[in-house]
């Protein structure tokens, strides 16, 4: 047991103080310790199974930067991060248990609370079903879910609390249950107007004297909805070498550079246009000619406009004209082809019109690497335990030396070293053995996504419920290496950058995900 004899907020002192606080109607000592606080909810905890043990959640706040820990009767049970959050206990809280928030650096108890566990003669034994099949939102599954609590005794009323993930129990909605006899109370829970995500169903028993108790055996369901449609993207860079299909007198090669700017408006393009020496069908020997190329690339629409002027040598009669203009859209998942109308001018007069196609020559540039960005938690289809990440290709478009990879596709591929520390042989959720097969367009900002990382809410709920029942701590980690590829030619792709490590971490009250150095964490668990 930890001793706190050296501090004035010692165990005996705080018990007396906190007992006084409870008697005064508060279960928290936060007002005694300024910005540090610790509160238990529910408190008191009513238990109906005769065990005398209950569960509760400790909500804390502490200054940013502090290193803190929460102790239960002197035993470390949670080491959370400031400034605020909650730690859920298991079913081991006994009446009068003292919870202390400690400043780890000084060892001082900075806030405490006593939890009351009150045994009632209200009992219940089971929830049926413990898991419900998910709803797709297409109305092919029932819009009302039937839940029943079994083995109820001494209750004059029962209602079901439907608690949405990430929200406290106090905000749960209530649905009155009907007594079907034999200790079975049942209620239909409407799902139609509920937001997407995971829900817990808790039976609340009420005795004739008004005393209430929450049943430990709970149910779980998930609401899924809405199809997701990804936007498509335009190609963003004409930089490189391109060969067209013109024959006036011979196809030429464009060697182009593109100004580094992140603006979506037309970006300046410059370089050369060159035709090789050729003998025409009329027997005329034409020399190699080099033009000055200029134009614009609209990184928003993919429209490229090019002009070749000022040929060198300046003029060879009957070999070529003095100005070439063409414009077209850069297209395809490889951004390797542009096509559209062209015109050839002589002394400012349009003499030939037609359509052209030009194709990229050689391998297209590959990003030297990428970084990751945690965007948010998913709200689509109820996948609320999945983190949404984006990849940011280096170098950023607009930075010196930057290049636009917009419009090309990137894909994730497996690398050796997958580790699933959550799975067990008892699990109906399979172990993670590979990535989830993503392939994305690169956007105008050299970003791609959404790369979803995480487990479905039902899988998280399953592990949170069944790992402890199998004698394992809920805390577990899954890591998956991810190698990225980028398309370069039709049917080909190249790997780039270092292998990303994707991580999923579960705890009794939270889910955390990371991709390389980007990470997100949220409360999840009931």
């Amino acid at each position, binding site marked *: 047991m930890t001793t706190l004899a050296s501090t004035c907020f010692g165990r005996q002192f705080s018990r007396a103080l906190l007992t006084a606080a409870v008697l005064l109607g508060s279960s928290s000592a936060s007002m005694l310790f300024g910005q540090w606080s610790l509160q238990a909810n529910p408190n008191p905890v009513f238990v109906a199974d005769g065990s005398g043990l209950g569960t509760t959640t400790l909500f804390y706040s502490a200054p940013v930067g502090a290193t803190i820990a929460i102790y239960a009767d002197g035993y*470390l*049970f949670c080491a959370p991060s400031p400034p605020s959050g909650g730690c859920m206990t298991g079913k081991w809280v006994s009446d009068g248990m003292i919870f202390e928030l400690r400043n780890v650096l000084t060892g001082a108890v900075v806030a405490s609370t006593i939890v009351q566990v009150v045994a009632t003669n209200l009992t219940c034994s*089971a*929830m*049926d*079903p*413990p*898991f419900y*099949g*998910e709803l797709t939102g*297409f109305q092919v*599954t029932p819009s009302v879910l039937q839940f029943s609590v079994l083995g109820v005794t001494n209750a004059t009323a029962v209602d079901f609390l439907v608690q949405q993930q990430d929200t406290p129990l106090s905000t749960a909605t209530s649905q009155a249950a009907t007594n079907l006899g034999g200790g079975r109370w049942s209620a239909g829970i409407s799902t139609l107007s509920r937001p997407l995500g995971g829900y817990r169903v808790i039976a609340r028993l009420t005795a004739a004297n008004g005393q209430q108790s929450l049943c*430990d055996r709970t149910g779980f369901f*998930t609401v*899924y909805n809405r199809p*997701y*449609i*990804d936007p*498509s993207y335009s190609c963003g860079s004409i930089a490189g070498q391109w060969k067209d299909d013109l024959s006036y007198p011979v196809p030429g090669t464009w060697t182009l550079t593109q100004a580094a700017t992140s603006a979506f408006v037309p970006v300046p393009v410059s370089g050369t246009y060159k035709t090789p020496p050729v003998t025409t069908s009329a027997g005329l020997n034409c020399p190699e000619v080099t033009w000055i190329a200029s134009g614009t690339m609209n990184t928003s629409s993919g429209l490229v406009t090019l002009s070749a002027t000022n040929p060198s040598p300046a003029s060879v009669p009957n070999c070529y004209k003095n100005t070439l203009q063409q414009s077209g859209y850069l297209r395809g*998942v490889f951004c390797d082809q542009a096509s559209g109308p062209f015109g050839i001018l002589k002394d400012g007069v349009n003499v030939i019109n037609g359509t052209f196609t030009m194709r990229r020559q050689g391998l297209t540039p590959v990003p030297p690497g990428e970084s990751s960005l945690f965007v948010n938690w998913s709200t689509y*289809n109820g996948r609320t335990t*999945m983190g949404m990440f984006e990849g940011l290709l280096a170098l950023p478009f607009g930075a010196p030396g930057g290049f636009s990879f917009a419009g090309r*596709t990137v894909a*994730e*591929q*497996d690398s050796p070293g997958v580790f699933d520390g959550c799975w*067990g*042989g*008892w699990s*109906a*959720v*399979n172990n*993670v*053995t*590979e*990535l*989830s*097969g*993503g*392939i*994305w*367009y690169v956007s105008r900002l050299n970003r791609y*996504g959404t*790369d*979803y990382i995480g487990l*479905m809410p*039902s*899988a998280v709920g*399953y592990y949170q419920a*069944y790992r402890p*029942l*199998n*004698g*394992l*701590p809920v805390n577990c980690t899954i890591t998956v290496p991810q190698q990225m*590829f980028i*398309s370069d030619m*039709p*049917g080909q*792709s190249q790997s780039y950058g270092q292998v990303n490590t994707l991580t999923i971490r579960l705890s009794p009250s939270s889910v955390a995900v990371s991709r390389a150095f980007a990470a997100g964490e949220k409360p999840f668990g009931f």
Partner: protein
Amino acid sequence: MLHPRRFSWFWPIGVLCVVYPALRAQSHGRQVTLSVQGPAPLRQLVNQMRAQFRWQINYEEPPWESDRDLTPAPGGARGNNGQPLFYPRGRPLTVRVDLPDQASDVAREVTARRQAIDSAFAQYRRSDNPPFFVVRHGGAYTTIVPSALVRADGRIQEYLPLMDTRVSLAPAKRSVGDTVMMVLAEVARLRSVNIVSGLIPVNAFYSSVDSEVFSEGNNEPARDILIRAFEDQNGARMRMMGLTVAYSWSLNYDRNAGSFFFNCHVHVDRVRPVVSTSPGQLP
């Protein structure tokens, strides 16, 4: 962190459960030995073959009912429904798998792979584990489904595998993920069972550029609709990036949760050049 004094009974069980599902693989040239211990050995064997050899094996369980097919959890643990936890019974299993040669002849490779799976399954059948399964081969997929259901009272009863359920789906362009979820929801409705998402390849299902496919079903087995959607996406990905996307699934039944868990795996590979395939050779 829980204090070991108060929760000491957790630890022996915890250690057991880490070791319990242990699964080993030993390679002997072209022959690989797989060892499985713990619940649902066929489920674990399929997972191992899928992960190690990238074979597209679908695996579907019956709703385990009989004590002959179930075993109580170590330590007599109970679930949230107040009932003792039960897992599919499993006796230790060691299987030798002959790996087919790669990149010689597609038809021969497929035939050899099927023989390897049949041989592994025959070894499973001799292992005194739940016996009522059957292997079906079709195209790139192998599917292992229940051949009968042992009822709680021990009677053996004919059983239609869940994904054999005939369903209809209005023709539409939709994501692979929505296609799967709609089909599963329809199966769940028609068969009055719960089907819950287990492991889902969300990127391939929903967020990839090739996630949208044209899907429909006309009173046909649910399995066929899924495979058609998967193969449409596979074709699109080959054209786009020269990559293949190979799906397979496990429909695991958890008696404690009263639900089937749909787990879908996806392997992405580069297209392997076909060496000597001629028309008519494909199985």
